[in-house]
């Protein structure tokens, strides 16, 4: 059992108090005694002098009585000197005692503080490491019982945290595995549904218009399911640190052409004006082309689906500092500020009556953000209700120092 701080303090106080009290009692006692003796001696001296003066007055004392009167006066003088010197000595004694007691107390306290300091410093250090993510941070339990108790409590808490974190890691891994497996297992039946529906469509001439419409609905939903599965798979990979890219020097213009071509039929169907404005002479960028195309199609699909008929959608690309900035701007309804801060979260979708015909998965922006970050950039949004929205991201120019290693993966989730 470690000594307790409270016990040490108690003992220290008791000793200090006893010493100081003793000094005070001795000092005051001595002072009173000396004063008493002094006053008795003075009184006695006056009595003797008075007796001598009476004799002188009666004329019976002669010379002896006259001398006595003179001697007593001198004696009182001596007594007064004596008492003041005695009082000074006593005061010095008491003061010395007080100083000694206080010095002792001070030494005791500084000793106690010193013995608490090391465990406390260790505790502060361990708490810092724990906060910084070092789950194995612990302190050595020892010293005073208070710091020992504190240390043990800290260790217990750190242990709980470590256990909780490893449990969470395990659940996260299970979740990722589950999504990967589910997405895998769902593909076979989906292949059948889509494949047989397509088979029916090969014979559309012998189907009634109603049947053709029915099969088209099946196929539409198959495509939606595939998109959802692909998006979920990308997110699970990203969470598991398995989403990897292989960046290569890539031309910007064909990427944008491609994405715009992919979207053309849909935007024209909604009489939307889709344009592109690419700064001439753009340098190559260090990216994985398929992934950038995926981001662009995601952003263009959002612009298309959330904007009304006849809206304008523009893709721009220009050099900003050492990056190429690509932006997708629409003059659609805009995004309210309350939704803007959640826009990159999973399954968060813009509301408004538009959602009716919006066929997204609610995962597109979350994935696009991961993919942009994987390329070392950030996906930003600016929007004003009634004016429109701009989603933009920057990508590194190829061949720059530090730009693009062979392959990058999202930092392993620790």
């Amino acid at each position: 059992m470690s000594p307790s701080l409270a016990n040490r303090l108690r003992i220290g106080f008791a000793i200090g108090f006893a010493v100081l009290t003793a000094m005070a009692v001795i000092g005051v006692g001595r002072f009173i005694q000396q004063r008493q003796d002094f006053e008795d001696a003075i009184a006695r001296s006056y009595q003797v002098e008075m007796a001598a003066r009476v004799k002188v007055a009666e004329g019976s004392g002669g010379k002896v009585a006259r001398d006595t009167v003179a001697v007593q006066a001198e004696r009182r003088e001596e007594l007064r000197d004596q008492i003041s010197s005695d009082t000074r000595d006593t005061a010095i004694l008491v003061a010395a005692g007080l100083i000694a007691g206080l010095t002792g107390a001070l030494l005791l306290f500084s000793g106690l503080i010193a013995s608490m300091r090391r465990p406390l410093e260790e505790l502060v250090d361990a708490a810092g490491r724990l906060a910084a993510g070092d789950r194995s941070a612990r302190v050595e339990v020892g010293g005073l019982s208070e710091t020992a108790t504190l240390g043990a409590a800290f260790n217990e808490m750190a242990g709980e945290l470590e256990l909780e974190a490893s449990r969470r890691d395990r659940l996260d891994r299970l979740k990722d595995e589950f999504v990967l497996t589910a997405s895998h297992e769902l593909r076979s039946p989906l292949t059948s549904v889509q494949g047989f529906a397509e088979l029916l469509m090969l014979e559309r001439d012998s189907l009634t218009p109603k049947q053709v419409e029915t099969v088209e609905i099946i196929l539409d939903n198959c495509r939606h399911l595939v998109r959802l599965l692909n998006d979920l798979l990308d997110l699970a990979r990203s969470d598991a640190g398995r989403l990897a890219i292989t960046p290569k020097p890539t031309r910007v213009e064909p990427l944008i052409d491609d994405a715009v071509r992919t979207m053309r039929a849909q935007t024209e169907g909604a009489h939307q004006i889709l344009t592109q404005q690419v700064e001439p002479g753009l340098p190559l960028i260090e990216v994985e082309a398929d992934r950038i195309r995926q981001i662009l199609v995601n952003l263009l699909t959002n612009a298309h689906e959330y904007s009304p008929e006849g809206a304008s959608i523009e893709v721009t690309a220009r050099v900003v500092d050492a990056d190429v900035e690509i932006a997708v701007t629409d003059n659609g309804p805009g995004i309210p500020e309350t939704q803007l801060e959640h826009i990159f979260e999973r399954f968060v979708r813009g509301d408004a009556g538009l959602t009716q015909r919006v066929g997204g998965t609610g995962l597109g922006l979350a994935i696009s953000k991961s993919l942009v970050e994987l390329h070392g950039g950030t996906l930003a949004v600016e929007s004003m209700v009634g004016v429109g929205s701009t989603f933009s991201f920057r990508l590194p120019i190829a061949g720059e120092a530090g730009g693009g290693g062979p392959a990058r993966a999202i930092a392993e989730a620790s």
Partner: protein
Amino acid sequence: MARVLVADDSETILLLLRTRLELAGYEVETAADGQEVTERLYKGDRDRLPDLLLLDAMMPRKSGIDALRELRAAGVDTPALIVSAHQDATDANATTDLEVSGYLTKPIDFDRLLDSIAELTRT
């Protein structure tokens, strides 16, 4: 008429593939897993090898990748297409020496599949 050996552990998908390929004018044989593929090719007359293999990457007993590895080791150089649930399922690095002619993911894009088959079986 070109002959295609199709292997998948799902009967429904086999039926789908058979129907689509036969509609496109191919002769189709089916196998339920990699084991069946290798057994059939070993036992069968070497002169009657199919013109193309269409193998699912993941199958019980023996995967399409493992079957193809055995066949290549045995000197069978029939062109092969690998179908996988998604691109994660097949590690392209693990199959570089198998002379795979193409990879497809589910759900199968039949336009792409039929283009590839036509190209690989052109004589």
